[in-house]
């Protein structure tokens, strides 16, 4: 692949810059410092491989403007041309590839154009600067390294692949390491193994535990038997000790019982009952005395007498005074206020009456008629007067309008008359005109008949002539040809003259002249025809001749009928010729003109008549309107007179209109309301005064009777007297009520007294009976006997209880007897000693048993744990899972180990078979450049090292070479790679920037020669600022293309 030219849109110092075309196989681009050589080198790299993603500092921004990027024109080894264009953007900037004629090409083709070279390979091997040549690390780029030592086309990622596989492998297992998956798994397996080892001893433990459990059970059985015997003894002792106190008590009770007397059927609870009876007697006695005392007190109250008792007889009057008391106060307080209100109302009424009229008073106001009838009459009069007034106005307006219209009609009549007088009456009237039209229709019919017969006659004559060879028969031809045409012309002339005469003098002159000329022409034709007429007829045609003659006759008759009909139209029957179609049309036109003139005349006449009739009709309307208006005026006046008469009748001014009458009536009604209020107030005052008088009449007699004085201030004193009366009455009522209550109590307490006296006697009887039951009448003796009886009962009950308790301890029957016997023989001390002894033995037994039970529980727990032990199961599950994981990891590790081995073996094989190509190319170049001083390069298979061998056989590592020589070695290595690359894929252009500057002149020349040799296969672009470098290349290769670039460009 070669670069043909390049176009920089914007890049570093360049904008819109075209460089090229590159025509030579080696192109030297010369420019001083800062001319932009490095920018050009970078431009080529970036267009082909994209802008560096991370290193934006190396983007060479377009300082001179333009879009950041540009294009390269390329031609591949097969001669196909492409344009690769790229501008800065995401992912290295978008690239477009087109053919030379602009057709788009798939982006993938760029990779093919570049022979699959990566960016790193191209930058370090094909397009490099002095800096990169000097930097040893540039050849340690993973890609380049791989290229050098593996000549690794197709294995660019081998180092990374190897590293990745080793990393993964080591993560799984590394012999020396402890932090890897396998080591982790083994540690876990060891742990699980320990757990399982422990679990293995469980069976032996299980057997031991089972044996021990059995022994414990046997010992427990023995202890249980011993404990049962001891517990029995302990129980007996315990029962004797428990029963001992009861036994002693029982013996004492029985001794006491033997000493006490026996009372049969002594009353139960005798003492209590006696004391209760005595208490009852005492209480009843006390109640009787209290009741008597109270009866006496109440009886005194019931007989009491008190003052003013006579007031009770005037109960109704007093109650009346009490009910009217408040109303009396209200009346006394209300009276002055009502009187003031009355004065105000009367004043207001007076003002209203004065507003109506000075002669108005309450009486007239009351008598004035304001009925609905009157109001209706006033409204009727108002409407009647208004209606009549309106009617008078309407009638007057109508009369004025009628008069105006009459004047207009009179003017119209005058105009019509003038038009009639200016128009002549036509000669023909309607009847005459219709008669002539009928005649014209008949004439036309007959003319058509005549024309048909004449045509027939003519046809027959033509047949006859053709059969005889003669023109005509005698008499016939002279008629047929001679008279026919002249007759028609003559008839036309006559008709013309006649019509002209009908239409008037003027048309008569023209029509007459034309008619005369037509007559002269007809005469000439007729005579000429007669002079030329042939003679003689052939006998062979006689039959035909007859037919011709018949036709001639019929024609003649038709002609005659035509003439008769035409005579009515004014064509003379004597005329020489019958009228023709033209004459008939003219006659019809003349009739049309007469008809038109007649219609116009009739219209004018009709209009005149209409105008005359209209004027006369309107004159009658004016007369009627005048009469109606006068009648309305009379009606209005009459109504007004009637209204005034009615007003006078009521004593009112005649000047009042119905409207003012309505207002007057309103005021009268308002005043009447005020009058009503005045009168109501007067009635109310009278009522109040009446109430006060009535109250006084009620009080005064009672006050006098009971000594209550009434002073001068009547109303107030009267109120005081009333209040005194009421108070004294209430006091008397209260005293009476208390006396009534006391009387009622006397009865009730009397009854109580009787009852209590009975109860007292009953209680005395109960006590006597009780003493009898005790066999005595002395209460004290009764009490002594009751005490002895109670003591005996208590001892007997105690003895029964003691026997039950002792029997509960011993059991029934013989056991109880034995028990009593043992008690009779025992002593407390003996029992105490025996119990202590047994208790000690039981305690010892319990402790032994407890220890065995604890042990049994513990062993049982251990056995239970062993029986339900699931840990070993879980451990086995875990062990299996771990083993499976371990196997899986081992398998993965094995895969990776084999993968690594495969890569290493392949690389070895690759290096052995392919490395010579790169090294041999490089060796050749290096030997050339160093003038054969170093004639051998060597890279041991599998090792990424390089050794150079001097001609003398001395071997050196690159680091042992001088700077210049080392640069030459790296240059040679690049040449080797370029050559090897090109042998198998696209040959890419080589772009170098000042790579010869550190070479001595001789080696520089040899290196330049090597470039020239390389240019045989690869395009070479050399950037330099040194003119001698330009000379060097042009000196070696005459076809070297030199391109100058300048900073300003």
């Amino acid at each position, binding site marked *: 692949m070669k670069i043909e030219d390049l176009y920089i849109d914007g890049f570093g110092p360049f904008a819109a810059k075209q460089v090229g075309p590159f025509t030579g196989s080696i192109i030297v681009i010369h420019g001083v410092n800062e001319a932009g050589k490095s920018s050009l080198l970078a431009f080529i790299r970036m267009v082909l491989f994209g802008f560096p993603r991370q290193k934006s500092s190396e983007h060479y921004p377009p300082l001179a403007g333009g879009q950041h990027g540009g294009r390269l024109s390329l031609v591949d080894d097969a001669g196909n041309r492409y344009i690769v264009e790229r501008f800065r953007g995401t992912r290295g900037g978008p690239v477009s590839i087109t053919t030379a004629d602009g057709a788009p090409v798939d982006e993938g083709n760029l990779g093919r154009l570049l022979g699959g070279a990566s960016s790193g390979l191209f930058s370090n091997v094909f397009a490099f600067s002095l800096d990169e040549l000097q930097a040893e690390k540039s050849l340690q780029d993973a890609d380049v390294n791989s290229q050098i030592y593996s000549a690794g086309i197709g*294995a660019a*990622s081998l180092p*990374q692949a190897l590293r990745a596989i080793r990393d993964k492998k080591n993560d799984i297992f590394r012999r020396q390491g402890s932090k890897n998956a396998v080591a982790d798994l083994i540690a876990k*397996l060891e742990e699980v193994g320990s757990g399982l080892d422990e679990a293995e001893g469980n069976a032996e433990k299980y057997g031991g535990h089972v044996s021990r459990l059995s022994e414990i059970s046997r010992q427990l059985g023995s202890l249980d038997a011993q404990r049962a015997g001891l517990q029995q003894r302990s129980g007996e002792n315990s029962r004797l000790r428990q029963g001992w106190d009861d036994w002693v008590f029982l013996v004492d009770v029985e001794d006491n019982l033997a000493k006490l007397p026996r009372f049969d059927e002594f009353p139960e609870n005798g003492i209590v009952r006696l004391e209760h009876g005595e208490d009852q007697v005492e209480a009843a006695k006390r109640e009787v005395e209290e009741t008597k005392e109270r009866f006496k007190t109440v009886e005194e109250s019931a007989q009491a007498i008190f003052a003013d008792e006579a007031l009770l007889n005037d109960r109704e009057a007093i109650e009346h005074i009490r009910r009217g008391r408040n109303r009396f106060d209200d009346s006394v307080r209300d009276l002055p206020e009502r009187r003031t209100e009355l004065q105000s109302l009367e004043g207001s009424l007076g003002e209203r009456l004065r507003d109506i009229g000075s002669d108005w008073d309450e009486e007239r106001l009351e008598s004035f008629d304001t009925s609905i009838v009157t109001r209706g009459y006033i409204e009727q009069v108002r409407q009647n007067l208004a209606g009549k007034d309106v009617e008078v106005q309407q009638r007057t307006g109508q009369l004025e309008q009628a008069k105006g219209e009459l004047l207009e009609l009179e003017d119209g009549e005058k105009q019509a008359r003038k038009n009639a007088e200016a128009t002549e009456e036509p000669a023909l009237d309607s009847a005459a005109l219709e008669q002539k039209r009928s005649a014209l229709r008949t004439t036309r019919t007959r003319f058509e008949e005549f024309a048909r017969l004449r045509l027939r006659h003519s046809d027959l004559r033509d047949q006859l002539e053709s059969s005889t060879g003669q023109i005509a028969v005698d008499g016939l031809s002279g008629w047929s040809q001679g008279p026919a045409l002249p007759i028609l012309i003559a008839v036309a002339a006559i008709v013309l003259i006649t019509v002209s005469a009908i239409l008037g003098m003027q048309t008569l002159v023209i029509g007459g002249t034309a008619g005369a000329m037509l007559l002269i022409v007809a005469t000439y034709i007729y005579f000429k025809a007669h002079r030329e007429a042939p003679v003689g007829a052939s006998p062979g045609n006689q039959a035909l001749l007859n037919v011709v003659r018949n036709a001639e006759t019929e024609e003649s008759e038709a002609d005659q009928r035509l003439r008769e009909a035409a005579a009515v139209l004014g064509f003379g029957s004597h005329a020489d010729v019958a009228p023709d179609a033209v004459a008939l049309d003219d006659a019809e036109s003349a009739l049309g003109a007469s008809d038109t003139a007649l219609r116009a005349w009739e219209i004018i006449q009709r209009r005149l008549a209409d105008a005359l009739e209209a004027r006369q009709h309107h004159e009658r309307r004016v007369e009627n309107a005048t009469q109606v208006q006068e009648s309305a005026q009379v009606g209005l006046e009459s109504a007004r007179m009637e209204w005034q008469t009615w007003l006078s009748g009521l004593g009112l001014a005649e000047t009042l209109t119905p409207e003012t009458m309505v207002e007057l009536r309103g005021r009268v009604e308002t005043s009447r309301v005020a009058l009503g209020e005045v009168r109501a107030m007067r009635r109310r005052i009278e009522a109040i005064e009446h109430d006060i008088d009535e109250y006084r009449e009620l009080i005064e007699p009672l006050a006098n009777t009971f000594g209550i004085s009434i002073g001068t201030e009547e109303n107030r004193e009267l109120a005081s007297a009333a209040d005194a009366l009421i108070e004294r009455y209430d006091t008397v009522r209260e005293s009476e009520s208390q006396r009534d209550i006391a009387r009622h109590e006397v009865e009730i307490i009397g009854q109580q007294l009787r009852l209590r006296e009975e109860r007292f006697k009953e209680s005395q009887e109960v006590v006597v009976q009780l003493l009898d039951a005790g066999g005595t009448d002395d209460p004290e003796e009764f009490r002594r006997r009751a005490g002895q009886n109670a003591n005996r009962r208590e001892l007997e009950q105690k003895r029964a209880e003691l026997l039950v308790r002792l029997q509960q301890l011993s059991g029934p029957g013989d056991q109880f007897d034995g028990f009593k016997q043992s008690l009779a023989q025992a002593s407390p001390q003996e029992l105490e000693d025996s119990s202590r002894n047994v208790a000690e033995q039981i305690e010892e037994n319990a402790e032994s048993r407890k220890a065995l039970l604890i042990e049994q529980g513990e062993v049982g727990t251990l056995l239970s744990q062993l029986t339900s032990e699931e840990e070993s199961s*879980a451990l086995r599950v875990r062990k299996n899972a771990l083993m499976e*994981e371990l196997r899986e990891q081992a*398998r993965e590790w*094995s*895969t990776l180990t084999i993968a690594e081995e495969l890569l290493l073996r392949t690389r070895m094989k690759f290096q052995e078979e392919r490395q010579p190509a790169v090294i041999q190319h490089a060796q050749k170049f290096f030997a050339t450049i160093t003038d054969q001083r170093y004639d051998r390069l060597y890279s041991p298979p599998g090792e990424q090292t390089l050794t150079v061998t001097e001609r003398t056989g001395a071997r050196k590592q690159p680091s042992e070479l001088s700077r210049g020589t080392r640069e030459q070695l790296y240059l040679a290595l690049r040449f080797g790679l370029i050559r090897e690359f090109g042998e198998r894929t696209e040959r890419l252009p080589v772009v170098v920037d000042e790579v010869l500057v550190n070479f001595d002149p001789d080696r520089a020349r040899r290196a330049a020669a090597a470039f020239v040799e390389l240019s045989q296969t690869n395009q070479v672009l050399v950037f330099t600022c040194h003119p001698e470098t330009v000379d060097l290349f042009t000196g070696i290769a005459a076809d070297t293309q030199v391109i100058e670039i300048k900073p300003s460009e």
Partner: protein
Amino acid sequence: MTRLKFIHAADLHLDSPFTGLRTLEPAIASALKEATFDAYSNIIELCISERVDALLIAGDIYDGDDRSLRAQLKFFDGLIRLSRAGIRSFICHGNHDPLNGWEARLNFPEGSYRFGAAMEGISVFKDEPGRAAVYGISYPQREVRENLARQFVAAGPEAFSIGLLHANVDNNADHEAYAPCTLRDLEDTGMDYWALGHVHTRQVLREANPTVVYPGNPQGRHPNEPDARGVYIVDVDDAGRVRLEFRAVDVVRWATLEIDISELETDQSLFDKIDHEIAQCQDNADGRDIIFRLVLNGRGPLHDSLRRPGFVDDLLERVNDTGPLERPFLWCERIQASTASLIDREQQRQRSDFVGDLVRLCDELQVTPDSLSEIRENLQELYGRGNAGRYLRQYAPTEDDLLELMVSAEAACLAELLDEDSA
């Protein structure tokens, strides 16, 4: 009329762990731990419900070194239940639970008989010795390489004779050749029925004269023991004709679901396919718990997804993410991604570059296994030495394994190399 009805079981491997499982949810692990016991319990209940005359167990009741006390107690508990139900039990031991294995001091219940190291015959019906007899022998130790079948001789034709033996008949390659014998050896003994154990997949080696049966193990314990597992109910009529009926007693069922990714374009399509396969699997499990392994194979675009770090783990989590564990459960124990990318291997082999050399080298190695010795030696670092060797020695790759690993290794290399190329 029924002369004899018994259940033939073998290889209980009580309390043996499930193998092949890497990680387990605690709840699942707990269920699996009980699975062999539950299956044994199902056998006991089947004996009782079917009212059989006897239960015959042909060895490997325990799992050898892992024989736990709990297993022994549970086993005896089952025998006691049978004894109470009046059902006899006959037991012989195999290579996993030889007589010299440690065991708890437990007494066999009445009606239960364990055969010793010498062959002997026991009547099934004590009061009718001529009706049926069981002949059996137990392994005295794990390694029994002699032909024990030859020791069996039926006492006479009148009783229905059953041979109870743990043995490898006709050299079954999937199992150790313990007590090896041939079908012919068995025929020559005069037995009417051979109740065998040792082979875990049930098979009827011979239908009649004699009937020779491996019932298989009653509970599958790893992915290679899929499908229904159980016992045979053997019904012998008066004429000595045998009718076999298999009954599944397993509680957890193993399945391997294989999915070919060739036709699958998207992750979602893979999820859908997995869901579909799981639903089918559930339909076939009769309501049992299921543990399955998902094997993805084939060549397709999804291979790249499957290679993404964490993808398979996430997928596993998604498959098992069905909320709180409920019975019956469905658990994916592993996703085995054996897929290949769309990389055309043949095309790569044609390349003249490094990649081509690599592929061709692999091809050479595949056909010249001798050259693998160096690789094998490299692997010894892990399998043959140190602590890891102690655990892994027995799993050292065989020649076939190596060839298989080679394929995986080549794929790993290509993935690394070509990934970078395409990057």
